[in-house]
């Protein structure tokens, strides 16, 4: 294949990937109620956003859920990642991958039936429990891949020098895989704060999150307020992902 055609089609795909998002961002500054043509620059939609109590409450909920879910799933996911690397296990690898491999809607509805069956009131708690369930796998994969890039002779050397398995893990293995754990935690945080489908089924009527709030807004009418919250949410995600990838490629190079 000719180099030029290849480069041109590659760039075209990048445009396809980014143009829709840029349009969302641009219209968040547009001085018009319609997302149709450019009228002029304004901060108006961001001011509307700051006065929208329902949206602010949803943002608070999302943050709380994401922090809690990512903290717990980082611990469980790190254990799972280490177990997958260290031991020959039959069940855990399947259970770690399965929630990521099957359609999200199925995870959502089965959790809904489960919570109702055990009489758990739907709300922040049920959302957090559900988010942990799908975040564990992602953290486990990141941690595991970091572990397999690790020089195995290092913890072995620590053991030879008389360290107990726990001390060798804490002083040698853990610092070595820390970038993977942090990247996994950031990944879990963004997955949680962005999740729509599973949250949609497990939220019940009381609790709202940012994605649920955005959903109910775009189902009713298109308003540039959605563009504004989308832009802010993208900035947050972008920041976290850039930080995570800063930490992680370093770990890939093994420094």
């Amino acid at each position, binding site marked *: *294949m*000719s180099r030029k*055609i*290849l480069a041109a*089609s*590659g760039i075209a*795909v990048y445009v*396809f*990937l*980014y143009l*829709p*998002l840029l*349009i*969302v961002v641009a*219209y968040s500054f547009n001085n018009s109620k*319609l*997302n*149709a043509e450019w009228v002029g620059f304004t901060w108006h939609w961001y001011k509307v956003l700051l006065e929208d109590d329902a949206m602010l409450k949803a943002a608070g909920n999302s943050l709380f859920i994401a922090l809690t879910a990512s903290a717990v799933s980082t611990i*469980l*996911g790190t*254990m799972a990642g280490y*177990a997958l690397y*260290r*031991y020959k296990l039959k*069940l*855990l690898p399947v*259970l*770690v991958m399965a*929630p990521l*491999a*099957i*359609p999200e*809607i*199925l995870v959502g*509805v*089965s959790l*809904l039936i*489960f919570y*109702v069956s055990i009489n758990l009131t739907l709300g922040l708690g049920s959302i957090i429990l559900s988010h*942990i*369930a799908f975040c*564990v796998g992602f953290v*486990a994969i990141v941690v595991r891949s970091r572990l397999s890039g690790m020089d195995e002779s290092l913890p072995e050397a620590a053991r030879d020098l008389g360290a107990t398995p726990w001390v060798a893990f804490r002083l040698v293995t853990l610092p070595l895989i820390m970038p993977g754990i942090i990247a996994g935690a950031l990944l879990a945080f963004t997955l949680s704060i*962005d999740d*729509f*489908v599973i949250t949609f*089924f497990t939220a019940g009527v009381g609790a709202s999150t940012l*994605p649920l709030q*955005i*959903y109910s807004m*775009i189902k009713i009418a*298109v308003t540039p307020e*959605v563009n504004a919250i*989308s832009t802010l*949410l*993208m900035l947050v*995600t*972008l920041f976290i*992902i850039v930080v995570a990838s800063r930490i992680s*490629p370093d770990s890939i190079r093994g420094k």
Partner: protein
Amino acid sequence: MNRDKWLISGPPLFYLVVFFVIPTLIMVIASFRYAGEYGGLAPVLLHDANGTHLNLTLESYQEYFSDFIYTRLFIKTLVYALITTFFCLVFAYPLALMIARSEKKRRDLLVLLVILPFWSNFLIRIYAWMIILGPQSAFTVALNGFLGLFGMNPVRLLFTPFAVVVCLIYVQLPFMVLPLYANLEKHDPALLDAAQDLGANGWQRFWRVTFPLSLPGIYAGVALVFVPVLGIFAVPDILGGTKGIMIGNLIKQEFLEARDWPFGSALSIILTLGAMAIVGGAALFARRRDV
């Protein structure tokens, strides 16, 4: 040693059993239960004059197979997923190849640029297409102006199957690029040089060296794109109108609006089994071809 193994793998295993395996089993059982009077589920055990007995039924599955409308919706969902997968492959391949053949130090950045939009919220990406395909958008206006030149009637883009498929391609594209790139990046450039030395032109080098070697990457990408599409409901829910609905919309409806949970569960299980059969069949086919 064995104790450590259980200490480390036990907690995550326990969590996933409680919050994944058990809910899944409960859903399987739910598909055989009767719907509750006010939505939800009727009790599994029934107590009456004859004692206690199981209150299970095949009704939900019978309902699915009694009306072809459901199978048709399932087939429609499969068709959307196939079209989406095909276009993802067509768009992703050149991009993955371009990244794999660019300078080594630039590759990480180029891959990151593919992943980045995928990290924006799912709903935002759908919403973007709501704007682009809206009746007053620059794109729609320009398209209809163009069609008008040939005396054709203006078309509506939003709330159509077209909008659904375009957006599905958009949200799934990174899942095709990444496995393809991971595969293409590993190809030994010496193979292409050898093919060239033996007189193969660019086209032949691609179809007889690069493409066959990239098949595992293609299979992985196809699986990653195809399966999630089967269960998607947000895209058709927001962009599809009444004509663009997929099986996921029906499942959502049964759980949240119609409140027929047994039927919703049965649909979910039929969807899962269908997806597994397709992926399993494809994997078997792929393995046989590779041998």
